[in-house]
Protein backbone atom coordinates (compact mmCIF):
# COMPACT_ATOMS: atom_id res chain seq x y z
CA UNK A 1 0.00 0.00 0.00
CA UNK A 2 2.31 2.69 1.19
CA UNK A 3 5.15 3.78 -1.00
CA UNK A 4 6.90 5.52 1.84
CA UNK A 5 6.90 2.93 4.56
CA UNK A 6 10.58 3.37 5.23
CA UNK A 7 10.90 7.11 4.76
CA UNK A 8 11.10 8.79 8.16
CA UNK A 9 8.44 11.34 8.98
CA UNK A 10 11.10 13.92 9.76
CA UNK A 11 12.19 14.05 6.14
CA UNK A 12 8.79 15.27 5.10
CA UNK A 13 8.75 17.76 7.93
CA UNK A 14 12.21 19.01 6.99
CA UNK A 15 11.19 19.58 3.38
CA UNK A 16 8.06 21.33 4.55
CA UNK A 17 10.04 23.55 6.91
CA UNK A 18 12.47 24.44 4.14
CA UNK A 19 9.66 25.42 1.80
CA UNK A 20 7.90 27.45 4.48
CA UNK A 21 11.04 29.35 5.46
CA UNK A 22 11.86 30.09 1.82
CA UNK A 23 8.34 31.34 1.28
CA UNK A 24 8.68 33.61 4.28
CA UNK A 25 12.02 34.95 3.01
CA UNK A 26 10.48 35.55 -0.40
CA UNK A 27 7.58 37.53 0.99
CA UNK A 28 9.99 39.71 2.94
CA UNK A 29 12.58 40.20 0.22
CA UNK A 30 10.67 40.43 -3.03
CA UNK A 31 8.90 43.60 -4.10
CA UNK A 32 6.93 42.30 -7.04
CA UNK A 33 3.46 41.58 -5.63
CA UNK A 34 2.95 38.62 -7.98
CA UNK A 35 6.15 36.98 -6.76
CA UNK A 36 5.20 37.74 -3.16
CA UNK A 37 1.92 36.02 -3.85
CA UNK A 38 3.76 33.00 -5.23
CA UNK A 39 5.78 32.83 -2.03
CA UNK A 40 2.58 32.83 0.00
CA UNK A 41 1.36 29.90 -2.11
CA UNK A 42 4.65 28.16 -1.38
CA UNK A 43 4.05 28.56 2.35
CA UNK A 44 0.51 27.23 2.03
CA UNK A 45 1.80 24.18 0.21
CA UNK A 46 4.46 23.60 2.82
CA UNK A 47 1.68 23.43 5.40
CA UNK A 48 -0.30 21.09 3.16
CA UNK A 49 2.62 18.73 2.98
CA UNK A 50 2.81 18.67 6.76
CA UNK A 51 -0.89 17.92 7.01
CA UNK A 52 -0.61 15.00 4.64
CA UNK A 53 2.52 13.66 6.28
CA UNK A 54 0.81 13.66 9.65
CA UNK A 55 -2.34 12.19 8.13
CA UNK A 56 -0.25 9.28 6.94
CA UNK A 57 1.91 8.87 10.04
CA UNK A 58 -0.66 8.55 12.77
CA UNK A 59 0.14 8.47 16.44
CA UNK A 60 -0.43 4.81 17.28
CA UNK A 61 -2.64 5.82 20.18
CA UNK A 62 -5.14 7.22 17.71
CA UNK A 63 -5.23 3.93 15.87
CA UNK A 64 -5.60 1.89 19.04
CA UNK A 65 -8.57 3.96 20.15
CA UNK A 66 -10.20 3.22 16.81
CA UNK A 67 -10.25 6.91 15.97
CA UNK A 68 -9.81 6.31 12.26
CA UNK A 69 -11.36 9.62 11.07
CA UNK A 70 -8.20 11.39 12.22
CA UNK A 71 -6.59 9.84 9.17
CA UNK A 72 -9.13 11.75 7.08
CA UNK A 73 -8.80 15.03 8.95
CA UNK A 74 -5.45 15.84 7.38
CA UNK A 75 -6.72 15.24 3.88
CA UNK A 76 -9.84 17.29 4.55
CA UNK A 77 -7.74 20.20 5.75
CA UNK A 78 -5.68 20.04 2.59
CA UNK A 79 -8.82 20.18 0.46
CA UNK A 80 -10.04 23.25 2.32
CA UNK A 81 -6.64 24.92 2.13
CA UNK A 82 -6.70 24.39 -1.62
CA UNK A 83 -10.20 25.87 -1.91
CA UNK A 84 -9.17 28.89 0.13
CA UNK A 85 -6.00 29.28 -1.92
CA UNK A 86 -7.97 29.20 -5.15
CA UNK A 87 -10.37 31.89 -3.97
CA UNK A 88 -7.47 33.92 -2.63
CA UNK A 89 -5.56 33.73 -5.90
CA UNK A 90 -8.57 34.78 -7.94
CA UNK A 91 -9.19 37.86 -5.80
CA UNK A 92 -5.53 38.64 -5.15
CA UNK A 93 -4.50 38.58 -8.77
CA UNK A 94 -7.58 40.64 -9.57
CA UNK A 95 -6.43 43.27 -7.06
CA UNK A 96 -2.91 43.26 -8.48
CA UNK A 97 -4.11 43.74 -12.05
CA UNK A 98 -6.51 46.47 -10.92
CA UNK A 99 -3.70 48.33 -9.18
CA UNK A 100 -1.49 47.83 -12.18
CA UNK A 101 -4.14 49.28 -14.44
CA UNK A 102 -4.32 52.31 -12.19
CA UNK A 103 -0.61 52.93 -11.68
CA UNK A 104 0.84 51.13 -14.69
CA UNK A 105 3.43 49.38 -12.61
CA UNK A 106 3.44 46.70 -10.00
CA UNK A 107 5.28 47.16 -6.75
CA UNK A 108 4.52 46.14 -3.22
CA UNK A 109 4.47 49.78 -2.15
CA UNK A 110 1.56 50.45 -4.47
CA UNK A 111 -0.56 48.11 -2.43
CA UNK A 112 -0.76 51.00 0.03
CA UNK A 113 -3.20 52.63 -2.36
CA UNK A 114 -5.74 50.05 -1.26
CA UNK A 115 -6.31 52.25 1.78
CA UNK A 116 -8.17 54.58 -0.52
Amino acid sequence: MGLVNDVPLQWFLALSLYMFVLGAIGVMVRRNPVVMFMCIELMLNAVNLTFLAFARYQPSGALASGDVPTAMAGQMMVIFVMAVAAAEVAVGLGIITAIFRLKNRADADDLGSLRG
Partner: protein
Amino acid sequence: MTANQVAFLLVGGLAALGATGVVACGEKPVRSALCLVLNFFLLGVLYFMLGAELLGIIQVMVYAGAIMVLFLFVVMVLALQSQEAPRHKERRWPLAIVGAIALAATVASVIVTFDPSPFSQPVGDGYGKPQAIGAYLFTEYALPFEVASVLLLVGIVGSVLLARRNA
Protein backbone atom coordinates in the same frame (compact mmCIF):
# COMPACT_ATOMS: atom_id res chain seq x y z
CA MET B 1 19.20 3.39 2.09
CA THR B 2 16.12 1.89 0.51
CA ALA B 3 14.63 2.59 -2.91
CA ASN B 4 11.82 4.59 -1.32
CA GLN B 5 14.25 6.81 0.50
CA VAL B 6 16.20 7.40 -2.70
CA ALA B 7 12.96 8.25 -4.49
CA PHE B 8 12.00 10.66 -1.74
CA LEU B 9 15.39 12.34 -1.80
CA LEU B 10 15.16 12.71 -5.56
CA VAL B 11 11.64 14.12 -5.66
CA GLY B 12 11.97 16.10 -2.46
CA GLY B 13 15.35 17.46 -3.46
CA LEU B 14 14.03 18.67 -6.79
CA ALA B 15 11.01 20.17 -5.03
CA ALA B 16 13.35 22.00 -2.64
CA LEU B 17 15.32 23.21 -5.65
CA GLY B 18 12.12 24.51 -7.20
CA ALA B 19 11.24 26.30 -3.97
CA THR B 20 14.67 27.89 -3.92
CA GLY B 21 14.19 29.01 -7.50
CA VAL B 22 10.96 30.80 -6.65
CA VAL B 23 12.82 33.17 -4.36
CA ALA B 24 16.13 33.25 -6.24
CA CYS B 25 14.58 34.08 -9.61
CA GLY B 26 12.41 36.83 -8.19
CA GLU B 27 13.72 39.39 -10.66
CA LYS B 28 12.23 37.33 -13.48
CA PRO B 29 8.70 36.49 -12.39
CA VAL B 30 8.14 33.98 -15.19
CA ARG B 31 11.10 31.87 -14.09
CA SER B 32 9.89 32.18 -10.54
CA ALA B 33 6.51 30.86 -11.61
CA LEU B 34 8.14 28.06 -13.55
CA CYS B 35 10.09 26.95 -10.48
CA LEU B 36 6.89 27.05 -8.47
CA VAL B 37 5.16 24.87 -11.05
CA LEU B 38 7.98 22.35 -10.72
CA ASN B 39 7.64 22.46 -6.95
CA PHE B 40 3.87 21.99 -7.03
CA PHE B 41 4.06 19.17 -9.53
CA LEU B 42 6.61 17.32 -7.41
CA LEU B 43 4.54 17.94 -4.31
CA GLY B 44 1.76 16.15 -6.14
CA VAL B 45 4.15 13.24 -6.67
CA LEU B 46 5.02 13.30 -2.96
CA TYR B 47 1.32 13.18 -2.08
CA PHE B 48 1.09 10.10 -4.27
CA MET B 49 3.98 8.58 -2.38
CA LEU B 50 2.14 9.36 0.84
CA GLY B 51 -0.81 7.37 -0.49
CA ALA B 52 -3.07 10.39 -0.97
CA GLU B 53 -3.92 9.66 -4.60
CA LEU B 54 -6.83 12.01 -4.98
CA LEU B 55 -5.08 14.93 -3.33
CA GLY B 56 -2.00 14.33 -5.44
CA ILE B 57 -3.96 14.62 -8.64
CA ILE B 58 -5.93 17.59 -7.31
CA GLN B 59 -2.64 19.23 -6.43
CA VAL B 60 -1.47 18.85 -10.03
CA MET B 61 -4.82 19.88 -11.46
CA VAL B 62 -5.57 22.85 -9.23
CA TYR B 63 -2.15 24.22 -8.43
CA ALA B 64 0.02 23.26 -11.37
CA GLY B 65 -2.79 23.26 -13.92
CA ALA B 66 -4.98 26.18 -12.99
CA ILE B 67 -3.55 28.51 -10.35
CA MET B 68 -0.08 28.68 -11.86
CA VAL B 69 -1.42 29.19 -15.39
CA LEU B 70 -3.38 32.10 -13.96
CA PHE B 71 -0.20 33.44 -12.36
CA LEU B 72 1.66 33.16 -15.64
CA PHE B 73 -1.22 34.85 -17.43
CA VAL B 74 -1.11 37.80 -15.06
CA VAL B 75 2.69 38.02 -15.15
CA MET B 76 2.64 38.07 -18.93
CA VAL B 77 -0.19 40.57 -19.24
CA LEU B 78 1.66 42.85 -16.83
CA ALA B 79 4.88 42.36 -18.77
CA LEU B 80 3.11 43.23 -22.00
CA GLN B 81 1.64 46.45 -20.64
CA SER B 82 4.51 47.57 -18.47
CA GLN B 83 6.32 50.53 -19.98
CA GLU B 84 8.32 51.56 -16.99
CA ALA B 85 11.54 49.88 -15.98
CA PRO B 86 11.33 48.47 -12.45
CA ARG B 87 12.50 50.90 -9.83
CA HIS B 88 15.57 50.34 -7.78
CA LYS B 89 14.65 47.97 -5.03
CA GLU B 90 15.66 48.34 -1.47
CA ARG B 91 16.90 45.06 -0.07
CA ARG B 92 15.66 43.65 3.14
CA TRP B 93 17.84 40.60 3.01
CA PRO B 94 19.47 40.90 6.47
CA LEU B 95 16.15 41.15 8.23
CA ALA B 96 14.74 38.32 6.15
CA ILE B 97 17.70 36.04 6.80
CA VAL B 98 17.65 36.66 10.53
CA GLY B 99 13.93 36.08 10.71
CA ALA B 100 14.18 32.95 8.58
CA ILE B 101 16.99 31.51 10.68
CA ALA B 102 15.04 32.17 13.85
CA LEU B 103 11.94 30.50 12.42
CA ALA B 104 13.90 27.58 10.99
CA ALA B 105 15.83 27.05 14.21
CA THR B 106 12.68 27.05 16.30
CA VAL B 107 10.88 24.48 14.17
CA ALA B 108 14.00 22.45 13.39
CA SER B 109 14.74 22.05 17.09
CA VAL B 110 11.35 20.41 17.40
CA ILE B 111 11.87 18.22 14.36
CA VAL B 112 15.32 17.08 15.42
CA THR B 113 14.34 16.19 18.96
CA PHE B 114 11.05 14.73 17.71
CA ASP B 115 10.42 11.15 18.72
CA PRO B 116 8.79 9.40 15.76
CA SER B 117 8.34 6.07 17.50
CA PRO B 118 4.67 6.53 18.49
CA PHE B 119 3.87 7.45 14.88
CA SER B 120 3.04 4.57 12.61
CA GLN B 121 1.36 4.40 9.24
CA PRO B 122 -2.23 3.22 9.08
CA VAL B 123 -2.80 1.03 6.06
CA GLY B 124 -6.48 1.38 5.40
CA ASP B 125 -7.67 0.11 2.07
CA GLY B 126 -9.53 3.24 1.15
CA TYR B 127 -6.89 5.70 2.32
CA GLY B 128 -6.60 8.57 -0.12
CA LYS B 129 -9.14 7.11 -2.53
CA PRO B 130 -11.84 9.37 -3.98
CA GLN B 131 -14.63 7.28 -2.45
CA ALA B 132 -13.35 7.66 1.10
CA ILE B 133 -12.68 11.36 0.75
CA GLY B 134 -16.05 11.97 -0.86
CA ALA B 135 -17.83 10.07 1.90
CA TYR B 136 -16.20 12.19 4.60
CA LEU B 137 -16.55 15.43 2.68
CA PHE B 138 -20.31 15.05 2.40
CA THR B 139 -20.99 13.71 5.89
CA GLU B 140 -18.71 14.81 8.70
CA TYR B 141 -17.24 17.76 6.85
CA ALA B 142 -20.42 18.91 5.11
CA LEU B 143 -20.52 22.26 6.89
CA PRO B 144 -16.91 23.28 6.12
CA PHE B 145 -17.50 22.06 2.58
CA GLU B 146 -20.48 24.37 2.17
CA VAL B 147 -18.58 27.25 3.76
CA ALA B 148 -15.73 26.65 1.33
CA SER B 149 -18.13 26.70 -1.60
CA VAL B 150 -19.59 30.00 -0.40
CA LEU B 151 -16.07 31.33 -0.09
CA LEU B 152 -15.34 30.31 -3.66
CA LEU B 153 -18.53 32.01 -4.81
CA VAL B 154 -17.47 35.17 -3.02
CA GLY B 155 -14.08 34.84 -4.71
CA ILE B 156 -15.72 34.58 -8.12
CA VAL B 157 -17.93 37.60 -7.53
CA GLY B 158 -15.02 39.57 -6.11
CA SER B 159 -12.71 38.86 -9.01
CA VAL B 160 -15.42 39.66 -11.55
CA LEU B 161 -16.01 42.99 -9.82
CA LEU B 162 -12.30 43.76 -9.72
CA ALA B 163 -11.85 42.90 -13.37
CA ARG B 164 -14.67 45.10 -14.62
CA ARG B 165 -13.23 48.07 -16.42
CA ASN B 166 -15.77 50.70 -15.39
CA ALA B 167 -16.56 49.50 -11.92
